[in-house]
């Protein structure tokens, strides 16, 4: 049956349509809402079709790492909530959650969209540390792109809390935003391969049949800043060329939501 279902999907893709009537390189409806949480410094809710992801940003003052004494720190943590998909179990983060967090983290870190040097308060002693949480509320496929979009929207939404040199007052938000380099903001587009076809934004049932996927993260001018390959099957150099091409093309569309 599993094979038959894959064949059924392939029949669809052969004709250039998907199970829900979309084209191969068409996203579902995307909605980005910024600032839905009072208590976080920055937050965003992203819905892509039936997939819903929350992202929240917390800021605190901490010590820098010894090798980067004048730079702020950033940490991303993803939680795949059991309520979003029956396959997700409660407990310590599973391998998918770690991958999700790392891929989103890598895009932001390598693009250099956050000017971490500006987050330094006192060299070698105090810097702002950014803690980002990703929380999946409903998983209908494509958590990668939804999470990346949510995190970036939350970062844009972030307002610095007031800090008097000793304690951070989270109740009082200042008008300052994070030092973001808007030109370098990365967009993430995950291209999946089923048979000989490349699709974006797979729904849950398609995701189960995906042979390989490539997450392409691109800056505004088209510079690649991160790649992540997943899935069981290998990709040829030609495949990667095609997938990166689709990723760059689609990133223009995704950028409009930020």
């Amino acid at each position, binding site marked *: 049956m599993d094979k*038959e*279902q894959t064949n*059924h999907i392939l029949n*669809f893709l052969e004709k250039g349509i998907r*199970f*829900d*009537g979309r084209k191969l390189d068409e996203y579902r409806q995307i909605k980005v809402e910024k600032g839905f949480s009072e208590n976080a410094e920055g937050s965003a809710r992203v819905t892509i079709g039936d997939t819903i992801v929350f992202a929240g940003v917390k800021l605190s003052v901490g010590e820098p790492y010894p090798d980067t004494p004048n730079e702020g720190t950033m940490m991303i943590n993803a939680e795949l909530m059991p309520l979003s998909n029956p396959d997700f179990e409660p407990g310590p983060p599973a391998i998918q959650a770690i991958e999700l967090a790392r891929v989103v983290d890598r895009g932001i870190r390598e693009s250099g969209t956050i000017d971490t040097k500006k987050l330094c308060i006192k060299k070698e002693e105090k810097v702002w540390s950014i803690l980002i949480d990703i929380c999946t509320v409903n998983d209908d496929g494509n958590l990668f792109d939804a999470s990346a979009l949510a995190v970036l929207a939350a970062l844009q939404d972030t307002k610095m809390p007031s800090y008097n040199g000793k304690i951070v007052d989270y109740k009082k938000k200042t008008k300052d935003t994070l030092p973001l380099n808007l030109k370098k903001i990365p967009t993430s587009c995950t291209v999946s391969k089923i048979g000989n076809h490349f699709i974006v934004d797979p729904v849950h*049932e398609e995701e189960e049949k995906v042979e390989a996927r490539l997450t392409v993260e691109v800056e505004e001018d088209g510079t690649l800043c991160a790649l992540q390959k997943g899935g069981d099957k290998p990709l040829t150099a030609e495949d990667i060329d095609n997938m990166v091409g689709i990723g760059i093309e689609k990133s223009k569309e995704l950028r409009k939501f930020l």
Partner: protein
Amino acid sequence: MGKLLVEDKTIVTPGEELAEGMDFLPAEGTFRDKDKIISSGLGLVNINGRVIKTIPVAGRYAPKKGDVIIAKVTNILMSGWILDIDSAYSAVLSVKEAKDFIRRDADLTKYYNIGDYIVTDVVMVTSQRLVDASMKGPGMRKLIGGRIIKVNTHKVPRIIGKKGSMVSMIKNATGCNILVGQNGLVWINGSPENEIIVVKTIKKIEQEAHIGGLTDRIKTFLEKETNKKINIEKVE
């Protein structure tokens, strides 16, 4: 003489008092507390003479004897299969109840393997909610090809229609094979374009099930989607 506290076909919440007095009888979705009848679920009140019940508007499938359902094989036992019936309980299909005669030492995966979808009949639900399924009888089979979608199990009667009128209308208009299980799983097999129309139509029925004149609206919807004229056979 007892007194009704709600009107027929209103939506009630759990704990709401429906009637007073011993003249009324509690049925599905209701219970008696002293001389009052109280709703135990969210649903539409249905008053039939002295009998009061609530028809749920949402919620999971509750297995019932005689239901024809679509189930997924999730595990293989020594003497049968465990089925996921998209409910809180799983069902068991015993080797004796399989379609063909199976020898004692046969490899059960040759008949139904893990991940296969089958059409099956609920033959027994015990008070402990152990569900027994059977493949004996016409129409029970393993599903080959096609795809499965999930719908609200309480909207299944509207998708099927009176004597199957709604589902046969969709079948005729699109030329797809459709099977609707009572547990809310629907199997569709046809050409890609038509399958998408079927899914759209079923989603539309699911959303608009409570609004009157459904058949006519679905008919015009299908005509627009397929660009074909549809003649509805009148069902008495």
